[in-house]
C-alpha cells in the first residue's frame, strides 16, 4: 500500500513476520508525519473517524530518537488509551519536535491488520539526502 505525491508519502513494505514502514517528505517533520500515517494505515482504516482527544507530545533527541519516540507514542496511546491518530502535526523545537496528535476512539475505527506493538532498531534508516529530502525506513513488531 502506498500513498505518494511528488513531495511526501509513505509505503508499507513486506517483512516475513512484521511490517516495514517507509516514509518521505521535504523536511524531517513532514517525514515524521508520514511515518505516523504509514503506521496507522498498517492496522486501521480511520476514514470517517472523528477525533475525540487531542495531545501535545514533546520529543527530544537525535533524529532516530525522534522517529522511534514518535512511533512508540502512537503505539502507547493505542494500548493505554484506546486512541488512534487521525491527524498529526510535527513542529521543530530546540533540540527536538513538538507533536500534535488528534486521536479517535479505537472502537470507532476499523481494524485492517495486526496491531503494532514495538519499534525495532534493526535496519532503521532516517536521514536527509543530498537534495534535502528526508526518508525513513523502520520495522515495526506486530
Amino acid at each position: 500500500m502506498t500513498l505518494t505525491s511528488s513531495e511526501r508519502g509513505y509505503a508499507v513494505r513486506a517483512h516475513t513476520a512484521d511490517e516495514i514502514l517507509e516514509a518521505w517528505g521535504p523536511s524531517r517533520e513532514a517525514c515524521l508525519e508520514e511515518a505516523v500515517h504509514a503506521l496507522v494505515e498498517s492496522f486501521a482504516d480511520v476514514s470517517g473517524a472523528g477525533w475525540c482527544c487531542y495531545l501535545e507530545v514533546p520529543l527530544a533527541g537525535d533524529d532516530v530518537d525522534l522517529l522511534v519516540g514518535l512511533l512508540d507514542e502512537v503505539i502507547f496511546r493505542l494500548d493505554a488509551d484506546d486512541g488512534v491518530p487521525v491527524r498529526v502535526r510535527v513542529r521543530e523545537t530546540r533540540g527536538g519536535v513538538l507533536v500534535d496528535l488528534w486521536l479517535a476512539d479505537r472502537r470507532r475505527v476499523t481494524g485492517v491488520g495486526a496491531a503494532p506493538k514495538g519499534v525495532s532498531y534493526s535496519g532503521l534508516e532516517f536521514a536527509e539526502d543530498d537534495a534535502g529530502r528526508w526518508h525513513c525506513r523502520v520495522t515495526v513488531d506486530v
Partner: protein
Amino acid sequence: MHTEVSSSPLQRESAVRWRLERRGQMRVPGVVFASERLLPAVQGDRSLEQVANVATLPGIVTASFAMPDVHWGYGFPIGGVAATQVDRGGVVSPGGVGFDISCGVRLLATPFDRDHLGDRLPVLMDALAAAIPTGMGRGAVWQVSDRDELLRILTDGALYPVSLGYGEERDLDRCEDRGRLPSADPAQVSDRAIKRGLGQVGSLGSGNHFLEVQVVDEVLDAAVAEVFGLHPGQVCVMIHCGSRGLGHQVCQDHVRHMSDAMHQHGIEVPDRQLACVPVTSDEGQAYLGALAAAANFARANRQWLTDATRAAFDRVTGRRDLPLVYDVSHNLAKIETHRIDGRDVELCVHRKGATRAFPPGASELASDLRPVGQPVLLPGSMGTASYVLVGVSPGDAFASCAHGAGRTMSRHEAKRRGHGGPHLRDVLAEQGIEVRAGSLRDLPEEAPMAYKDVEEVVRVCEQAGLGRRVARLRPIGVVKG
C-alpha cells in the same frame, strides 16, 4: 555438500544439520537445523545473516543456533537460540528475547471426546469468542483495580490468579517455573509499560495469537501421552499469547537503555537491535528483573484466559474440569546450567521463537513429568495440525526445540494471494473448522500458505534430536486474536 549463503559456505553436517562457518567478527559458528525442503525458506530471507550477527555477541558459547522454523526477525532471527557464559562477560540482549516477552503456548485437556461434543461445537465457539478478549488496545478478562494490583501480578505471575480462585494448584505444577519467576523486579518496569498493561490482563491480542479447540488426531507415544493426560479423540484447547503491550514496552525501553550503555562496557554490535550488556552489570540485572516481571504478566494473562475458557466450557457443556497439560514460553532469556566440555557452566540462554525442551530427569520438571521429559508445544498455522513433543536426552541447542511452523510469507503477501477473509473462513468451515475472528479482513494474514509445513518442521525436530513427537492435534475451532 556446500551451498552458498550470503557469500558464506553452509556446510552440511547431517541430513538436518548445517554449519555456518565463522567469519568476520563471529565468535562461534552458526548451526541451522533444516532439511533440504526447509532450506530454501531459510535462505530466502535474512535469517542467516542474523544467525551470523548473533554469533558476534560477547560470551556466546558453542554456536548461534537456528531452529527448523527460523525466519527473519530483527536483531535475532525468530527461531534463534544463543547462550552466553555468565562468568566470562556473557551478555544479555533484549533483542534475543523479542518484544513479546514470555509469549508462549498453553494446552488444556478436556474430559470430552469429539463425538461427545456433537453439534454443540458452534455454540461452544460462540461462547469462547464472547469470553476471550481479542484485538488491539484495551479490553481484558480481569479488571485490574489499581497500579498496586498490577505490581502484584508482576511479582506473583500465575500464582496470583490461582490464589484468588481463578485456577487450581495443578495449573502451577504444569506451568514452566510454577507460573512465577521469583527474580521479578517490578521497579525496573517503566510507568509506560505499566500503563499499557493495566487494561490487558487476560487478553489474546492480535496478529498470530489464538485460542484453538483441537482434537488429538494421533498419539505417537502412548506412554508419554498418558503421563501428559492425552488420548486419541480427546478435545483440547490451545492458547497462544504473551505479555501484551507491557512486555513490548519493557523490550523497547531496555533496548534503548542498553544501546546507550553498552559502549561503556566496550561492546559493539552489528545491529542496534542486538544491544546488550554483561549479565552481571547493573543494566543487565535491571533488564533481567524487568524481563521476569513481564514473564509473570504473561503467565497470569494465560491463567486468566484459562479460567475464562473453563467458564465458557461450563456454560455450554456443564463441565469446567480442563486440566492444564503444560504452559511453556518461547520468547525468554533464562539463567540455566548446562554441561559444556565436561563441566557445568552457568549460561544466559536466549530463546527467541524457540521452546525450552528439557530432557527426562531435569530437576526443574514437576515430579510426574521428570521421568519422561518436558512437554513441548508446537502450534501449526491456522487450520493445520499442532504437535505435542517431549524433550529428549541429550537434546541439542541447550535443550531447545522449534516453536511453530514459522512464517515464509509476509502478511501483505498472504493477503494479496488470498481470496479474502470470508472465503478463508468458508474454506476452513468445509474442513470442519469453526473460525471466530473480530475482523475477517485480516484473517488471511494467518492463512496456512503463509507458513512452512509444520509436518516437515516437526520431522526435522525429531530427526535432529531436538524433541520427540508425542501427539498430533488437529483444529476444529479457532478464535483468532
